[in-house]
Structure formats: structure tokens, C-alpha cells
């Protein structure tokens, strides 16, 4: 049984001008100890998917439907109290903005210790001792002194380390990381990714990594879910995805990544881009959600929504023209 099973997840928001279908029928699973990446461009519903898992979406205006099974239990049927016992304990989360995600008026130690006191019933002293251990674990020097400091006394990278320490304090089974490195500079990004990989092996937590950075995906993920306009359009093991992407959107994403040394090969090629914008999520699209931007789109695509089909072992894509093996028939 998978650790986390998401089935036909729909997260819709009621807005004054219609329903925003931020996530519209997404299914995937995460096995224990596995790292799954969810990629897609801004506004495709990846963050909302992540927030939906912990039910951090304000309801109303949000509404979550479908099933989110964690260890076989549907979280959408859990009470508020049961959800609170899961948050920060069995499933924890790291956010994109380390600069603003920590409370500026509480010490770092207090913020780490808080989850321990809440979920494990530790005393204030024991929680602080454990907070020092956690800071050591995430590689913050002088942990004993840092534990009494406030977030504004730490750099962005340090703060993200603190966020990781908070998230891992209770040894969660699942860690959801929503663009954990986006706001950091490149060298710090690499450090944070190394840290996450290292801690994952030590703690044994599964990770759902939300990102738009394909470099990060290649480095840490085992499987990848590609989302577009609130839908899953492709899912594959990481090597299969990079070597033979089936969905034109995934191909476009990969094509838009600059390759090292590409300008030295003689032909100064432009970076490929995907023309157009993500369609409004407020209108129901009858056909393929990507049809309006797809270079291969036909009448069939605008009329009939393609179903997710297994194109190779463990490799599914939602495209009428993605072949079972090989490239696109265009």
C-alpha cells in the first residue's frame, strides 16, 4: 500500500466571477521513503495540491473533493482535531519563502520546540535540547547560541534550514516541500538540496517536492508528475521523463531549459519557449487543456479531452498523439 494516495483530487475556489478549478481531478501516489516531484509552471495548481494534502486551504472559499488517503485513511474525512494531530507530526511542510515563513517575534528554538511539545508532549527544557540537536542536524553552527536567536538574525539559507528542522523535528513519514529552494541563491540551493537528500536517508521520510526547476527534479526525484492547468498531464520515473518525454507540454518544458555549452556548438540557437499562457482555470475546457498552446494540436485535441494512458511501464501521459514508444507522431 502506498503511503499517500491521491485520487481524483479537486480543489475549487468560489470567486465572484466563477469557480476557479485550481486542481481538477489529479491522482497520484507516493510510496514510503520515495521522492516524488510535481512540476509545472506558475499557476498550474502544484502548490494548491500540496496545501490540499494538509487541508491548509481556507474552506470556504476553497472546496476539496476526491480522496487523500494517508496510510489508508482518508484525510478529507478526518476531523479538525485529527488533522492537527497529523500536521507537523506525520506530515510536515516546508514553504517557498524562508524569509517570511518563520514567525519574526519568536525564537528559533521556540518555533522548533513547539511541534515537539505539541505532538510529543516534551517539557520546555527537553524541547529546547531537542531543538539544539535539530539545528546541529541541519548544519547550523553554534546551535546552542542560535537556538535563542530570532529569524531576523539569520540568513535566508539558515532560515530554510530552520524550516527543515521544524519540519523534521517529529520524524514525519511525509515531507511536502513547496519550492524549498526557489527563493535562495544558487550555491545555497545546492546546499539545501544536499541537506534534504541526506536527511531523507536518515529519517526515512517520503518527500513530495513541488518545483518548477527541472534541474532540481533531475537531482533529487525518483518519479515525476507533470501538472498543467490543474490536471496531471504526464507521470514517469525521472529518467524516462527526461529521456523520452511523451506529452508535448513536458517536451516544451525540457526544451526551455538552457543546456551548458549550447552556444559554443556553433549554431547560436534561441531557447525554445512554449508560446502563450496557461488558460484561465475558470472556464471548463472541453478538449485537451494544452491544445491552445500545443504545436501538434488537431481538431480532435480541441474537441475531446485525452485520457491518461500508460505509454510505457510506469509512464502515463494524457495526449492523443503520444505514442507508446518513440517520439511524437506529428
Amino acid at each position: 500500500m502506498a503511503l499517500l494516495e491521491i485520487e481524483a483530487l479537486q480543489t475549487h475556489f468560489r470567486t465572484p466571477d466563477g469557480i476557479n478549478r485550481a486542481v481538477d481531478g489529479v491522482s497520484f501516489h507516493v510510496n514510503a521513503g520515495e521522492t516524488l516531484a510535481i512540476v509545472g509552471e506558475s499557476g498550474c495548481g502544484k502548490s494548491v495540491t500540496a496545501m490540499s494534502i494538509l487541508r491548509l486551504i481556507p474552506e470556504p472559499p476553497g472546496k476539496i473533493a476526491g480522496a487523500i488517503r494517508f496510510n489508508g485513511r482518508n484525510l478529507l474525512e478526518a476531523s479538525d482535531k485529527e488533522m492537527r494531530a497529523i500536521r507537523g507530526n506525520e506530515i510536515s511542510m516546508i514553504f517557498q519563502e524562508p524569509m517570511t515563513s518563520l514567525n519574526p517575534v519568536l525564537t528559533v528554538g521556540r518555533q522548533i520546540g513547539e511541534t515537539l511539545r505539541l505532538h510529543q508532549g516534551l517539557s520546555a527544557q527537553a524541547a529546547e535540547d531537542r531543538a539544539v540537536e535539530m539545528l546541529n542536524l541541519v548544519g547550523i553552527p553554534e546551535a546552542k547560541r542560535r537556538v535563542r536567536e530570532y529569524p531576523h538574525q539569520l540568513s535566508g539559507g539558515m532560515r530554510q534550514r530552520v524550516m527543515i528542522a521544524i519540519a523534521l523535528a517529529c520524524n514525519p513519514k511525509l515531507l511536502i516541500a513547496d519550492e524549498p529552494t526557489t527563493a535562495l541563491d544558487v550555491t545555497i540551493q545546492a546546499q539545501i538540496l544536499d541537506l534534504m537528500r541526506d536527511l531523507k536517508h536518515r529519517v526515512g521520510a517520503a518527500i513530495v517536492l513541488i518545483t518548477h526547476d527541472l534541474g532540481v527534479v533531475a537531482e533529487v526525484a525518483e518519479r515525476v508528475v507533470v501538472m498543467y492547468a490543474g490536471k496531471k498531464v504526464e507521470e514517469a520515473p525521472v529518467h524516462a521523463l527526461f529521456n523520452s518525454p511523451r506529452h508535448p507540454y513536458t517536451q516544451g518544458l525540457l526544451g526551455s531549459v538552457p543546456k551548458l555549452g549550447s552556444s559554443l556548438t556553433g549554431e547560436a540557437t534561441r531557447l525554445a519557449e512554449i508560446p502563450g499562457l496557461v488558460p484561465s482555470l475558470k472556464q471548463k475546457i472541453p478538449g485537451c487543456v494544452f491544445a491552445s498552446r500545443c504545436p501538434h494540436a488537431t481538431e480532435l485535441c480541441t474537441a475531446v479531452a485525452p485520457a491518461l494512458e500508460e505509454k510505457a511501464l510506469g509512464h502515463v501521459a494524457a495526449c492523443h498523439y503520444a505514442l507508446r514508444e518513440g517520439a511524437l507522431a506529428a
Partner: protein
Amino acid sequence: MFAYVVRRVLATIPVMAIVALFVFSLLYIAPGDPAAVIAGDQATPDDVERIRASLGLDRPYLVRFGAWVWDIMRGDLGVSIFTNLPVSTMIRQRIEPTLSLMVVTLILAVSIAVPMGVVAAWRQGTWIDRAVMAFAVLGFSVPVFVVGYVLAYFFALEWDLLPVQGYTPFARGFWPWLENLILPAIALGSVYIALIARITRATMLEVLQQDYIRTARAKGLNQGGILFLHALKNAAVPIITVIGIGIALLIGGAVVTESVFAIPGLGRLTVDAILRRDYPVIQGVVLLFSFVYVLVNLAIDLAYTLFDPRIRY
């Protein structure tokens, strides 16, 4: 920090000097003559003139001001024209009721208004929020004496739950003391509650949008912990600022409240002194009020550091 406190305390001196000059000048140009009040209706102009001379009121403006300031610097606030008691003695006799009223009002107002604002922000847009806002508007728009008389009518006269008016010193027991202060504190505090509740709601609404509130929720904290620790501590600085500014409201309101509830405090002393043009008393009381106000605001500035570690002096 220590240097900052010393600097701020020293900075009160010029503030007090300006207040002193203002009070003195206003009273100097204001119509009315204490000598005429003392002399009574039957006095001849000569009698009035003689009294003026004995009170030193015939001396020029600058001389009188200089003499007054010189006395203050030696710790002497002067002597009342009417009672012949030293002003400092008169203030000492009247300070307890006023101080009691202010402290009770402050505690009452803060402990009602802050939770009200927090809950209104948490339940934004619901009937609770609208009720709090309606109450806030009402609190602003109904004058202290109206609230006072209405409260006294129902709670004291109709239902006989609390005393109508008067004051019992603290030395005679906590409950008798408090009993007499509840209605005046509510009357005086209604504007204050409205003010604090509004600013608490507004600040909390902003704070609840912040990323760290989402983090707190993701950690599994319950609503109480999120609202009253994570959010309220971040909202504290604007709230205590308003509490400090509101002390000025309390000082002004105390004068009216003490009249409505017949509390023998500094407010009554001030009103009586103004009616009789008892210059030394008026000057002494106003100087005291402004000194208290300056000190309260210093205390508030220092309190910022307790709530927000990013503020350092």
C-alpha cells in the same frame, strides 16, 4: 538601552517646559479674576485691587512666570489661592480615586477590547465581526456622560446592583473599592474599548495573512495558539501604541466621569479650580497630567522591545 532611557527621561524636561509655558500663558490671557471671586459681590474695586496685590497677581507676566518656574524647580507647586493648602498636598489627597479609576478602566478595556478585536478578525465578515464593529462605532459616538447616566440609571437605580456614585478608598477593602469603580470604568472605557478593538481587528487581519501563520497551521497548532501567540504577539506593537495614546483620552474623560459619578478625584479638582480661577492648582494638575502622559509613552516605547525582538534602542 539604559542610555536610551536616560535620554528619553531628560527629553521630558523641554516637553514639560513647553507645557508649562502654554498652561501659564493660556491662563494669563483667559478672562476671569480670582481676586474678584474671593472678594465677592459686595467688594469695592479697591478691595479687589488689594487682594490682587496680596496674591501677587499685579506683577508683570514674565515676573510671575519666572517666579512660578523657579518654585517648581525647587519642588514647590505653589499654594492654592482658595484653600491656602499647598497644591502638592491637594493633589496627594485627590490622586487615589483618579489613579484607581484609570487603572481599573485600563485593565477592563484591554481585557475586553483585545479578545474582541482578535475574534472579530478571526471571524471576519460573520455576525460576530459585525457586532464588534457596530459596538466600536457606538463606543465612539456616544459621549461619556450619556453612557455614565444610562449605566447609573439601570445598574444602580433600577436593579440596585452597584452603588450610584461616590468613592471608597482602597484601604477599606478591595470589593467596596472596586464596586464603586465598575460603572465609571465602563463609562470612561467605552471609547477606549472601541479604539483598541478596532486597531486590534485591523492589525490582526493583516497579520493573519502572513506566511508564518500558514506555517503555524502546518505545524498542527490549534486556533487559540495561532491567534493568541503567533498572531497577537506580531500585532502587539500597533495595539500598545494605541493603548498609550488612549491614556490621553482617559485623562480627558476622567474629568467628566468624576463629575457624573461624584468621585473626589483630580478631575473634579481641576474643574473646581478652573471655575474659581485657582491658577496654581490648575497649573499643577495640568503639569502632572502631561508628565504622566510623557512617562506612559516612554513605558510604551520600552514595552515594544518585549514584543518585537527587532526593535532595539
